[in-house]
């Protein structure tokens, strides 16, 4: 890595204290980040955890062919894309809307209080939040009581035992938990807008909605673009902690996302090479998605990450 000659060698040892701060960190990174990356090669092997890696036979693309012809794999792709699309199309604007409306509150104290309360659920563990959701969606739960009270249902529905509701359950619980937290970044961007712009617009006769659209939304557009790029490129991911909490045997056919498929195949069924092949393929597609989303956003809005 380095080619030391006399002087440099001396300089290196003279700063041994600084070096001793950094080198353990580099060693840590090699062990905990680079070694797992290296271990991805087991996607091309018939790896068994009991043997040293290099004794496992190379099998080429066998595992890649296997998962491409597995129906359960395609089902997990469908579930991941389904849940991500709902989250992206319906969920993405919600924190923006919340930030815009919160910004219209005049009383500073009320605004702060609402904001502080709104991001509390972000810090509640999924075990607890999911536990509440499971109770509410179950027999005699709050949701059933509410739906029957307003006449939308005439009998109880066990929402979490019926797979067709699962995507919507993940969407609503996620919205309830994360809206306030996701809005922080927009609220910060809004607070950076020059108040003079609003005064000028008001003098020109712009109404509330016009100001909101032409000044506030236009000013935070770069922030929106960046978060949108990240959201699109993350479309093959899912909130594992959430899904793992809410899934059960009855809703599995709609609940098994790609992450959960990898977990089930790799750690439950012990097919390490097979699920590493899925992981490998997914990282490549995800990287491609990031570049594509970035280019599209650059063309359409002029804003991009890189």
């Amino acid at each position, binding site marked *: 890595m*380095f080619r030391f000659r006399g002087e*440099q060698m001396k*300089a290196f040892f003279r*700063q041994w*204290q*600084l*070096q001793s*701060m*950094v080198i*353990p*960190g*580099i060693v*840590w*990174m*090699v*062990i*905990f*980040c*680079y*070694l*797992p*990356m290296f*271990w*991805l090669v*087991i996607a091309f092997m018939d790896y068994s*955890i009991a043997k040293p890696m290099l004794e496992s036979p190379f099998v080429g693309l066998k595992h890649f062919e296997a998962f491409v012809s597995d129906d359960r794999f395609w089902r997990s792709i469908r579930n991941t894309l389904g849940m991500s699309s709902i989250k992206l199309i319906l969920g993405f604007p919600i924190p923006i809307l919340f930030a815009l*409306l919160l910004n219209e*509150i*005049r009383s500073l104290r009320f605004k702060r*209080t*609402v904001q*502080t*309360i*709104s991001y*509390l*659920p972000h*810090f*509640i*563990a999924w*075990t*607890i*939040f*999911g536990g*509440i959701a499971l109770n509410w969606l179950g027999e*005699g739960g*709050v949701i059933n*009581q509410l739906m029957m009270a307003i006449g939308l249902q005439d009998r109880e529905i066990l929402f979490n035992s019926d797979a067709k509701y699962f995507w919507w359950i993940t969407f609503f619980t996620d919205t*309830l938990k994360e*809206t*306030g937290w996701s809005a922080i970044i927009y609220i910060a961007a809004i607070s950076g807008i020059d108040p003079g712009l609003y005064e000028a617009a008001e003098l020109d006769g712009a109404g*509330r909605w016009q100001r909101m659209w032409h000044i506030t939304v236009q000013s935070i557009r770069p922030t929106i673009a960046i978060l949108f790029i990240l959201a699109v490129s993350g479309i093959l991911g899912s909130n594992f*902690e959430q899904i*793992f909490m809410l899934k059960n045997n009855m809703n599995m056919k709609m609940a098994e996302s790609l992450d959960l498929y*990898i977990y089930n195949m*790799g*750690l439950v069924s012990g097919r*390490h090479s097979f*699920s590493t092949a899925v*992981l490998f393929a997914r*990282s490549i597609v995800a990287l491609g998605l990031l570049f594509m989303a970035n280019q599209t956003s650059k063309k359409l809005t002029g804003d991009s990450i890189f």
Partner: protein
Amino acid sequence: MKRRTGLRSIGVFEVCNTLLMLGVCFLTLYPMWFVLINSLNAPEQALLGTVNWFPEQLSLASYSVVFNDKTMMNGFLITTLRTIIGSAAHVLFTAIIAYGLSKTTLIGRKVYMKVALVTMLFSGGLIPTFILMTKLGLYDNFWVFVIPGMYSFFNMVIFMSFFRTIPDSLEESAKVDGASDYGVLFRIVLPNSMAVIATISLFSAVYHWNDYYQGVIYIRSQDILPLQTILYKIIAENSMSFMQQQAMAQFGARLPGNSIKFASMMVATLPILLFYPFIQRYLVKGVMIGAIKG
């Protein structure tokens, strides 16, 4: 005339908007209120179903079941230990690397930075990481909570940019007085970085407190299961510890007792709820720093 309609429409908007915001607050707080009242509901009453607004009959019986449950209390201890050790190790380790890397005189700095940057862009993912942990002997080992989480690129960058704002003159005068690099770091730099240390420790602590997933994947032994993993098993897998089953039998329940579940949830989230009013501004500050950096 025109002006008056203008004022009135603003009035309607303000009222609706305020109501909407109050609605958001309700939706946010109600789930926690729901857990609280149901945990305080007497177990006999809880058999009849959950209550929505107030307990039918106030009782701490469920809490005494939870606090007398050895599994739960051991989980509480493990979670507390991993929260303290895990966050301290994370902050210390990451801050020390960040300090070293923030020095432009460091030989090999460019190479080190590249090595660090790659860790943010690529990762091995679940299965390779799992295999590595097994090979390192961290499977079913308490230290799996601490060691793999000691460093994060993101927090390192936050530390580095904060260290840069500390005036060089402070460090130089300490050096003139004969302090070593470690002396400068621990006596000058870190005491002047308390704001960023508080923020990162809190994020790390909240993560450690709330995480159940590491416990599900890596831990088999009962005695090192974190509280949230035990809670996961109670809620999602409907499994109860022996003590809880006995307590349930005593109350004549057929189903896993809801009020005991809710009391467990309350115990597991109480530290967060209690500290939240005091720590929330540090947490928000952390996001702001992150947003500017990212």
